[in-house]
């Protein structure tokens, strides 16, 4: 790791101010992505600004329209949270499958979303659930937030403070883990909204990161059942192709994981 300067922020405003002062600053939440990248010397921030101890950025709560997860809440805390479990149990299930137990004790939802790893789990949930990302400057709709591999709508220095999830009728997540890294080789999140709309998002599969899966959304909108996906064809075009999964295999996994997610959703 290159030398850097560590700052611990006590408020969002302080964090933003520290960022503005740094030459090439980065925010550090749980550090479970940033620190491995820094260890490999693939990132060399002049300053790292620790957000994890900002009290306003931690916790889960009910809102008028659903639930809110503050950005520095760890995966473990989300997986155990009673409010989240009652409203969207699939989110708890997803959080409990990220990384491994030690990673879940540190990693945060905000860090995961800001990084937008193409094989991360949370982006699938946020996109399928049509969540809203709140930052220190604005709110961003999920459909606008994810902009390809490791790329988001966040501006330089902008901090995710929370994610608002609307109440949904049904939701489920199924993940086929990458054998080595245990990220998602393909993970699919399915959600049915109270108005009957269906949103489906897949992670780990596409060369462009998390994506909506239109054909499956249409099939499920017509008939919310695993068997409704049987006849869907997923194109392998644009899907990742590597030693752990060819593009056609990943196309198959999108279908199979979607079916299992529907079964999990009930």
């Amino acid at each position, binding site marked *: 790791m290159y030398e850097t300067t560590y700052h611990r922020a006590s408020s969002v405003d302080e964090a933003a101010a520290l960022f503005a002062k740094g030459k090439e600053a980065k925010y550090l939440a749980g550090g479970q992505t940033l620190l491995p990248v820094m260890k490999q010397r693939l990132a060399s921030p002049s300053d790292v600004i620790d957000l994890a101890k900002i009290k306003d950025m931690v916790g889960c709560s009910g809102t008028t329209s659903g639930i809110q997860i503050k950005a520095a809440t760890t995966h473990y805390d989300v997986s155990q949270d009673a409010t989240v479990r009652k409203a969207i149990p699939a989110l708890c299930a997803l959080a409990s499958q990220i990384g491994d137990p030690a990673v879940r004790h540190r990693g945060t939802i905000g860090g995961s979303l800001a990084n937008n790893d193409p094989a991360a789990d949370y982006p699938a949930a946020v996109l399928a659930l049509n969540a809203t990302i709140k930052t220190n400057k604005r709110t961003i709709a999920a459909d606008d937030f994810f902009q390809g591999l490791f790329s988001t709508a966040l501006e330089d220095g902008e901090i995710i403070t929370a994610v608002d999830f609307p109440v949904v009728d049904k939701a489920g997540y199924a993940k086929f883990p990458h*054998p*080595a*890294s245990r990220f998602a080789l393909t993970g699919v999140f399915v959600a049915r909204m109270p108005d009957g709309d269906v949103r489906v998002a897949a992670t780990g599969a596409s060369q462009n990161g998390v994506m909506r899966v239109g054909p499956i959304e249409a099939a499920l909108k017509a008939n919310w059942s695993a068997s409704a996906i049987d006849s869907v064809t997923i194109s392998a075009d644009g899907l990742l192709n590597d*030693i*752990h999964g060819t593009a056609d*295999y990943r196309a198959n996994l999108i279908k199979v994981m979607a079916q299992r997610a529907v079964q999990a959703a009930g």
Partner: protein
Amino acid sequence: MGVEGIGASVVRKEDRRFITGKGRYVDDIKLVGMTHAHFIRSPHAHAKIKGIDSSEAMKMPGVIAVLTGQQIVDDKIGNLICGWAITSKDGSPMKMGAWPAMAPETVRFVGQAVAVVIAETKNQARDAAEAVVVNYEELPAVADVKAAIAPGAPQLHPEAPGNIIYDWQLGDEAAVKAAFAKAANVVSLDLTNNRLVPNAMEPRAAIADYDAAEEHFTLYTTSQNPHVARLVLSAFYNVAPEHKLRVIAPDVGGGFGSKIYIYPEEMVALWASKKVGRPVKWTGDRTESFLTDAHGRDHITHAEMAFDKDNKILGLRVKTHANFGAYMSLFSSAVPTYLYATLLSGQYVIPAIYAEVMAVYTNTTPVDAYRGAGRPEASYLLERMMETAARQLNVDPAELRKKNFITTFPYQTPVIMTYDAGDFNASIDAAMKAIDYAGFPARKAKAKSEGKLRGIGVSCYIEACGIAPSKAVGSLGAGVGLWESAEIRVNPVGTIEVLTGTHSHGQSHETTFCQLIAERLGVPISQVSIVHGDTDKVQFGMGTYGSRSIAVGGTAIVKAMEKIESKAKKIAAHALEASENDIVIENGEFKVTGTDKSIALPMVALAAYTAHNLPDGMEPGLKETAFYDPTNFTFPAGAYICEVEVDAATGKTSFVNFVAADDFGRLINPMVVEGQVHGGLAQGIGQALLEHAVYNENGQPVTASFMDYTMPRADDLPSFQVQHTTTLCPSNPLGVKGCGEAGAIGASAAVINAITDAIGNNKLEMPATPDRVWHAIHG
């Protein structure tokens, strides 16, 4: 068997320090004034070094030196060696390219060291390494073994035209041709034995400390064989004469073969320590393990087996291409030859065998012995062959094996080995019973009715361990003898130190070797210490690999104990005024048989050291040394059967059951033996399902971290049912055979046989990843 003697599952003496965080591994050691090394490694698979500019790096904080490959050559440090000479079919010697510790002119694999930075801290060394400018001229590279021998392929070494190291043969070609001519059926098979990375959990490390006043070096290193390391560093690399070089291998965190070899980093650390006049420490990171630890396996094989009309095997023909990587590692040449082709008879009567092995250079990390070393490749080939044959001949795979088993011993195979003892029916019967083989068709049918794919796979392996005798291996080209040594010191108060030339890096020697003493001399294991891993303390020994430690090292201890007993009996007889022939040893007491007269071992020891009342002419003291050279290999064998279920939708395999029935001869500590089997099985299953070191066509590694190379984890594996059948090894007094590699040798074929049975498609290569299995199911 006493509570601590042979056959007792004694908990391990060494555990307390490991479970309390008090183990002492190389990286835990700090010396006063210690500096830190960081290697600059080639990012190219094949390139000329046009220049190295370290001027900027030298200005950076904490930097003491930047040393290059040319300096190593200038200082006349020797090239790395390969210690086993192989002769090609045409009588020519193997073609070995030069391997300097750091490349002066040409790099031939990604990760090869070209220079080293020595600095005050590890971070400073790494920071400065980025400021060293190495100017490369890239050359065309080749990673695939078949591509490397094709006309026009990039050439690695001028010494080896066509990239061919040797083209070797074993067996009787004419006899095999005749056997195939009269065959009723011929079964053929093409398969790949995938390249693996050993990945001991402790990365390699070295600390070199040069004492200028004494002109003496101390090297702390992660070695399975510190004496061999000293010998090679001294005799071949000109680092220092043996008496001026102390090699210490303290606690070592796993080896699996990868820590047998003397790597460039240790040599460079020693050399650099003298150059900078301070201790130099290097600790590899995992990426360096992937790039520079000797890899394992990597064969491509075509094989054919001939059967008569009664399904008896008539002959076997094997042609293997072995990928050696860019240089010949220390024992690389022996692995696909004398550790592979000599095991091609397996557990079967095969009247005629002919094997050809071509060893080939590629622009990849060097390949050498990894847990099993040659024997997993032989076993995988044969057991896939038997399964394929059973399916083709439409007979039960277990029955086909039984029909062809060797049942009388000793048995001379057509490929050098003389099997001394075994009962292959006993092992397979035990395994079949444990897994309820007879009930499998019903289980498969039930699974099918539930939409699931169920399969069963058998693998019957035999291996040769405790490689020996020295005279025989010498005649086959080995550069060393493969005996072992032991010294037993009975101290004046009766406590005992056993100095062994083997080295424990997980094998539990500190417990099992004590059990040998407890069994024979009746001394509690708490009063016995095992000393190993330090060339200044221990007499020359050959180290630990090839499942040799109990069969060879343990026997050396027994031989030394015999000498101790002999002298102690004389002392006891003298003290008790009895005839030496009337002295018997029971529970640590030297008794005059038929009387109540006795003297305890501590009193005998005290008498030996006070020397007040010894028989006339006897030397004082009670300390004996033995060097033991075995008369034959040992032949552990067994049967593994696994039952799997494959998820047709994802191609993912899960285990229903995994049964092992091994014959290791006498077990010293069954708990430890079973632990060795579990670990071996995990590595065999890892090879079958998960692990694969992949290079792209340009020689760039694709799987150089745990993010891409799939290590077996707890949820990839089942619990194992391990059991034992026993035929004693006749060639050593303990009747032991060795258990360290069996699991890794036998498991992979059982897994692939089970999966191919489940999916009804025999064409499936290792590792059987979900992606590959799914394609094999769905086309």
